[in-house]
């Protein structure tokens, strides 16, 4: 199975996002590089607004993700509630 990944800057803003991704994607592997966190997941990765809100303690607009986003790989399917990475095959 091919891997999708997302790389975020490592800072206070992304910590709850990373926690949310790990919670929603048990198979995800978190690689903490200097100043960057790269998360790999086999097949697909789901980022849910609700889970992030749980961790962050306030309302969250999924587009805020873009501020700290470095790069990603996979086809993006995005709506207001979730952001999905997947290879369409």
């Amino acid at each position, binding site marked *: 199975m091919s891997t999708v990944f997302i790389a975020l800057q490592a800072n*206070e803003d992304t*910590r*709850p996002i990373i926690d949310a991704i790990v919670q929603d994607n048990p198979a995800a592997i978190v690689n*903490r*590089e*200097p100043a960057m966190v790269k998360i790999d997941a086999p097949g697909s990765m789901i980022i849910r607004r609700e889970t992030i809100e749980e961790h*962050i*303690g*306030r309302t969250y607009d999924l587009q805020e993700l873009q501020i700290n986003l470095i790069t990603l790989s996979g086809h993006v399917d995005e709506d207001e509630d979730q952001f999905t990475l997947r290879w369409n095959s």
Partner: protein
Amino acid sequence: MQIDLRTVSIKQQRNTFDHLARRFGDKPASRYQEASYDIQATENLHYRPTWDPDQLIYDASITKIVMADWYALKDPRQYFYNNYTLARARQQETAEANFTFVESRGLVEMLPEELKRLALDVLVPLRHAAWGANMHNSFISGYGYAAIFTQACMFHAMDNLGIAQYLSRLGLLLGDQEALTEGKTAWMDDEAWQPMRRYVEDCLVVRDPFELFVAQNVALDGLLYPLVYERIVDGTLSTQGASSVAMLCQFMSDWFDETRKWVDAVMKVAAAESEHNRLILQEWTDKWSQRAAAALLPVARKALAADAEEAVAEEVDSFKGRLKKIGVEI
């Protein structure tokens, strides 16, 4: 000559403090966790306080509520000093801009006299209630247990003081210094304010910090803010043409919306801990919310006249609905 640039990645020896690693595992901790968890002093406090030798200096048993781990009372807003002050500074700027707007556009002069009177009558005496709330939250902060809970109470106490100040400024803007004097006279002597004053004063002698939390932050605030700021200020006053008053009270509405989440989270966790806790919380909420509703009724009459009773009953109903979601039924 050729220079190669190479990055060297240095793996840090530890991700966070040991006490946080024990609690959350060895991974980078958030600032909130670092600033809040397990920082309550627990050891080497072998002298009992001279002012009350029956208790320890930091004593979890002053309250009837029993928690296996007091650090379970997490603040969902994750406020610690830094982000709390930043959030409030931003809100202060908005409030400041609102006051300037109302003042510079002469909106106060455009207020119909009877609406101005009504706003002063209902809002200015409340600054004494807000001061009481400040005292109560300071008490909870002083005698409560676990930094995660007490620091949030201290922030709450500062907010209460801020609200008292906004109310004073509103009084000064709408009615100059006499408004504040009249407000105090009403608080001290006006029949309609006496049940409320008694409520606040009775709270000053409650010794159980968690009961005080229920009496002030859950019961009184839970009925007062929706009734006064949502219903009377944003509703009645605004529809009659005094929306400038609503502008001056914006902080209070926003603040209640925000802090409610914290109050609910604390209650929910404490009630879910044990049947014992749930029953005590139920008893306290029942007792104090009934008193709060009775104390608010004469105040509501000032603004809503004959509709007051229905309005208070509706607020009590929605308050009960809110508590039901937390797991406390009254």
